[in-house]
Structures are given as structure tokens and as C-alpha cells.
């Protein structure tokens, strides 16, 4: 259902594609907040928020109308003193988790966040056990042998 919706939105957006691609939108001075600290915070948040009608862009990049609306909402919230977490919570409540490019850690995304660590650990463990089994095939060189080897200068 949602895939269908996205596709429909994409089709509608197709004639607008050019505008969507003229990106880097959030730097428009007409939109910026006066307080540079707040503006910087808003910009950092923009990079984590998806432009819902675009194919895969953050609202920091997109010039779509909806992205502009989302930027306005985020800036408003930042200006009225909401914390980053509150802003994200507000967006998720309104648009669902899909709106966040960085998925929040919860039961449904635990596997996603854990995956990299699990893979490295399991892979490392497998390699460690194999290397233990393999052992080294010969006794270490004696100092005399080492000296001889150095003299050979390979």
C-alpha cells in the first residue's frame, strides 16, 4: 500500500524532478533563523529528516515544497526551545518513523543496530577458533638459525 503511495507520489513528482534536483535548499537565507546557534542545530536536524515525497533525500538537500514545510516546522520548534529529541518525537508522531533517516533504537531496529557488532564479533570468533586449531607448523627458529637467515639476505 505504502509502496504504491510512494510510487504515485513519485509519478506526480516526476515533472518536478528538476526542481527537486536543484538541491542544497536549506541554505536559502530567506528561511534561516536569526540565532546562528539555533540555525546550526536546525541544520543538523535537517540532515536526519527525510523529505517524504522525494525519492531519497534529506530535507536539508531537497527543494520540494514539502521539504520546505518540514524545514519550517523544525526551525519553528527549535526557535521555541524544543530539544532535538522533542523535535524528532514531534515529527515521528506526525509522519511515522519513516521520516527519520537515522532510525531510532527500539525493539524493531535493535537487529539493525546490533548487526555490525554481531558480524564482527562472530567473524572474529570463527577466525580465532580456526587459527587456534591451525597452530604453527614448526618450532620457532633458534638464534643461530635466525642469524643464518639474516646472512642470506633474502
Amino acid at each position: 500500500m505504502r509502496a504504491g503511495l510512494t510510487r504515485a507520489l513519485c509519478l506526480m513528482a516526476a515533472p518536478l524532478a528538476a526542481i527537486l534536483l536543484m538541491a542544497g535548499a536549506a541554505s536559502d537565507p530567506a528561511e534561516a533563523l536569526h540565532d546562528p546557534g539555533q540555525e546550526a542545530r536546525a541544520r543538523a536536524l535537517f540532515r536526519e529528516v527525510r523529505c517524504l515525497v522525494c525519492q531519497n533525500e534529506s530535507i536539508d538537500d531537497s527543494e520540494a515544497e514539502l521539504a520546505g514545510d518540514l524545514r519550517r516546522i523544525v526551525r519553528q520548534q527549535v526557535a521555541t526551545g524544543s530539544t532535538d529529541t522533542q523535535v524528532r518525537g514531534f515529527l515521528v508522531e506526525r509522519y511515522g518513523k519513516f521520516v527519520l533517516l537515522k532510525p531510532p533504537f527500539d525493539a524493531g531496529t535493535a537487529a539493525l543496530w546490533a548487526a555490525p557488532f554481531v558480524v564482527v564479533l562472530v567473524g572474529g570468533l570463527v577466525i580465532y577458533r580456526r587459527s587456534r586449531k591451525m597452530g604453527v607448523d614448526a618450532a620457532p627458529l633458534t638464534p643461530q638459525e635466525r642469524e643464518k637467515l639474516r646472512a642470506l639476505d633474502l
Partner: protein
Amino acid sequence: MIAELGAFALVLAFALSAAQAGFSFAGRYWRNAALRGAGEGAALATLLTTATAFFALMVCFITSDFSVANVAANSHTDKPLLYKIAAVWGSHEGSMLLWNLALTGFGATVAIWGRDLPAGLKSLTIGVQGLLGLVFLGYTALVSNPFLRLAVAPVEGASLNPILQDPFLAIHPPFLYSGYVGFSVVFSFAIAALIEGRVDAAWARWVRPWALAAWSLLTVGITLGSFWAYYELGWGGWWFWDPVENASFMPWLVGAALLHSAIVTEKRGAMPGWTVFLGLLAFSFSMLGAFLVRSGILTSVHAFAVDPKRGSILLGILAVAAGSGFSLFAWRAPMLKAGGLFAPVSREGALVLNNLFLATAALIVMTGTLYPLGYQAATGQPLSVGAPWFNLTFAPLMAVVLFILPAGTMLSWKRADALGAVQRLWAAGLAAVAMGTGGLLLVQTKTAFAAIGLALGGWLIAGALAELAFRVRLGKAPLTESLRRLRHLPRASFGMTLAHIGVGVFVLGASVETHGRIEAARAVAVGESVQVGQFTLTLSDVASVEGPNYTAERGTVRVTSASGDTFLKPERRFYPANRQTVSQVAIQSHGPSDLYVVFGERREAQGKPSWLIRAYWNPWARLIFGGPLLMALGGAISLSDPRLRLAAGARARATAIAGAKA
């Protein structure tokens, strides 16, 4: 008429690839040279017929034959010739034809250059390649035929998306597809080895040239695409962790792992099963990419030629090809004999770590790319896994593997002296620390991450040079002796040095660009200016210009800096055929850094017109693209190493034995 010729050639290629597979397998089964030769001949004929089909389509595009549906949908008489040609691979049908051209081309290279391969292995490889050709040519001929005619030909075509009308993007797909499909040879070699039940040093050596070629081409292809995004999408982004980018990145990572594990198998006969597994995996990821890009299953900014129905057929092809490959692997791999024991601290050990991290990286990219699909299937809710997630998981992992890289190259085979390796790197360590602290002080980087990136980049470059110096005993032996050693170094080792320097260069560019970029935007009237970094940009003129298939508003921007005045001419183009507006960025390079200027839309302020100008100072941005090109060049130099030529295999073995006796 040309279109019919093309369609005929396509169907003929399909039939010939069946013959290629049939004759080759029969030749292997009955150990019959005539049948084997017929298989090889069929491989060449498949290439010729596929090339005929490909060039027939190209002729249709060049002559703007709009009675061909594919041409009508993707071309336009106004388009410059280059983009008429590039439009051949700009659609679903045409891009699959390019895929087939690469596939049959690589199959033919095995037939032509594989003279010294054992007959059985060669036949099986060509046979498997024929089966792949059968599947993909069949797909193209039956459900994705680019030669279908329209009952009523339109007077004018629908043209190609203007943002794709770009010289870099025109040549990006041929490189990318050659890379993707180059791994098909490795896949076929892997299947052949599994059937033969033998994976040894010789096999690894035979596979390496194709793996190197495929990986280098893929590197160039990805870099071109990334560079295109950098200057065409209009805000200087170059990597978005977009599903389509990830689709090309997964085979790249696996290919990089494969190049390293194949060395271990070649030099020490160790890890044969793992090398074969990576060989199967690389092309499986290529096929996964072909499916992801065209199925529309994931929303992507680059999604192209999306067609869910045909996407599911591609998924079927992927399932059958990869599925049978891995099943065969599960069945036969336990029979492969591993040789070459080694201690954990050794060159082999370091390469195992390299493979652990590269394979994990590929798996991370796959997890992040496909997780939303699983999540939605399970919960019914959509989920985004975007750039922030990838940056958090991928970057630290890569930092670890890059940190151990220089030490790994210093270790000797079998059993190494870790302390000695570290001692040889003291100069590189100093360079890294100097780069890191120097970066903090001089480049005015904002965060500690930039300093870490600088240190890591310096460590990689200096480490690669230190390894070269160690090899030629620079400073330990007389200079003439070092020079003599340098002349006699195998090209493969220069290739390695260059590729590793390339990694360092990329890390430098990526860190400095990401953390040091300056951005400014302002709506200015003619005569007004905007300040970015040390530059003052003044809009001095706005003019209308007429292009071949667009009209444009062109701003003339005077760039004032300490070194004087220069002019930049960014444009905002309107393509009437597509009714699209596209920005033409103006970039001025200052050494490795770029001043990047975008000419935005016209606005009215207080009754007079003004234009939004966005300007970016992207320090060291060129290194982001230069680094990967160095990696690809390193791959190409390794490829030119005579030791890797097939005919040299026997000679090299003879020399090695002679050397061991002496």
C-alpha cells in the same frame, strides 16, 4: 531494417549462448577437444552477435529512428550526438543490452586468453559463462527487447532526462557495467573449480586478472558516478548511501576482499574455500544490484528504468544463479584442501583481518539497504535507514581496518615479527601525528574527526611509502642497490603501493571536505556580492543563452580573492523537451580544493530582480575522486604485471623451483 537486424542478432546471441554452454559442458564431459573448441567458437560468436545487436541499437539512436519504441522514449533529434549514443544505455532495455555485451565480452576473453588454462577448467568456465549469457540474453530478448517497433512512429522523441545529459554520466555506465559483469568471470571460474573439486595456487592466479580488471573498472565507474553527483546535483554531495549507490558498493567491497584473499590462496594455498565463496558473492551482489536498481523496490534518488514486473523476473534470475552457485559451494567446498598454515601474526593473518572487515562492511551495507524491506514486511510500517546510520556504523569499522593496513603490508608470510613491523613504520607514525596536529592547527577544522581523518590519511600514505622503502632497503643498502631493487620490483607491488596511497588520498579528501566546507547563500541583484571563505563573489551580469536543446539564464560571477579577479559562469538551464530546469554549476579549482557556485532562481525584491547564489568552498574535494582513481590505476598496474599473464604461469613456477634449488 536496422532494428530488425538487431533483434535478429539478439535472438541469435541467445541461441549461441545455449550452444556455448552445451558444447563446453559436453566437451568437458567426453573430454573431446572438438566439442570444447566448438564451445569456445560459440563464445566468440555470442560476443559478435551481441555486439551487432548493441551497435544496431546505437544506429537507431544516432539516426533518431522513432519508430523504435525505445528510441522514441529516450531520444530527441535536438540532442547532441554524444547523448544520443549515451541514451543507448539510458533505459532498462538498453542497459540490459550493455550488460549482455559486457557478459559475452568477458566470456570471449576467457576463450581467447585462456590458452594455458587446464582444458577442463576452461571449458567449464566458458560453459557457466554461457549459461549466464543464456539467462540474461533470454531476459533481454523475451521481456526487455529494445528493438520493439511502434505501430505509429511519433514525429519527435521524449528525450533523455537532462541531468543525465552529461559527459561523465555518458561514460559512467560502460565502466560500471564492465565492473559489475567482470565479476561474472570470477563467478564462472568459481563454479568451474567447485565442479572440478580443485582450488589451488594456480587457480587463484588465473582468477586474479579478471578480478583485478572488474574491480578497477567498477572503481572507475563508481567514481565517475560520484563525481557526476558532486557537480550535477547542485550542492556538492558526493555519496548519499542511497540504495543504488550501495548496490554498486557491495560488489566493490566484496571484490576488494576477493583481491586480497586471492593473494593468500595464490601465494600460500590457504583459504581456498573462502576465496571461491567471495568469487560467487561478488557477482551475486552485482546481480542483486541489477535487480535493486530496476525493480523500484527501494526508493532511490538514482532509481532508473524502474519496472516492478520485470524486476521480479530479475529477482528470479538472481535466486536461481546465486542459489545454485552457493548450493554447489555448500556441497563441494568441504572437499577443497587448504594448505599453507600460518601464525596469527603474519601477512596471511593481516589479510584475514582485512577480509573480515571488508566482508563485514559489505554485510553492513546490505543490512542497511535491505532492512527497511524486512521491517515493512514484518510490521507494515515503512522505515528509513539513511546516511546517518551508515556513517555511524561503516566509518568506525573502516577506520579500524585502515589503521592496521600499513602494518599488515610490513608483515612477512607465515610468521611475522610484529615488533619489527611496527619499528619499520615509525616514520609513517610520525607523519600521521604531524598531519593530525597540523590539521588541527592549520586547516581550521571544526571537529576532532577531521584531525583523526587527516592522521589516518597521512598514516596510510606514509605507510605505503615506508613499505616501498623497506622493500628496496632504502637507507639500509647503498643507493645504487636500492635503485636496482626498485627497478626489479614486480609491478604488482607498485600497484599495491599506489592503491594503498589512493586509499589514503581518499581519506584525506573525504575528511577535509566533510569537516571543512564553507557554505554561503544570498539573493543578490546585479552588482551585489556574497562572501564565501576568502572569496567575494559579485554578480556582474545575467544573460540569456541558447544551447542546442535548452535555453539558459547565465550569471557572470566575478570572483575576487587575494590573487586577483576571475570570472565564473554558472547557468540555470531549461530543457523544453522535458520541461525541466537544471542547474549547471560552475566550479573553479584551486589545487585540490573547489570553489563551487550555483546560480539559483530569479526572485523579485523591492521591485528589482535578484538571483539566489549559493557558493561552497570545498577544501580538498578533488582528492575524494583522485584517491579512487589512484586505486583503479594501482589495479591496472598490477594487471599489467607479467606474472599475472596466463602464459607466464608455467614459467613463473619453473623459475620459482629453480630459485628454491639455488
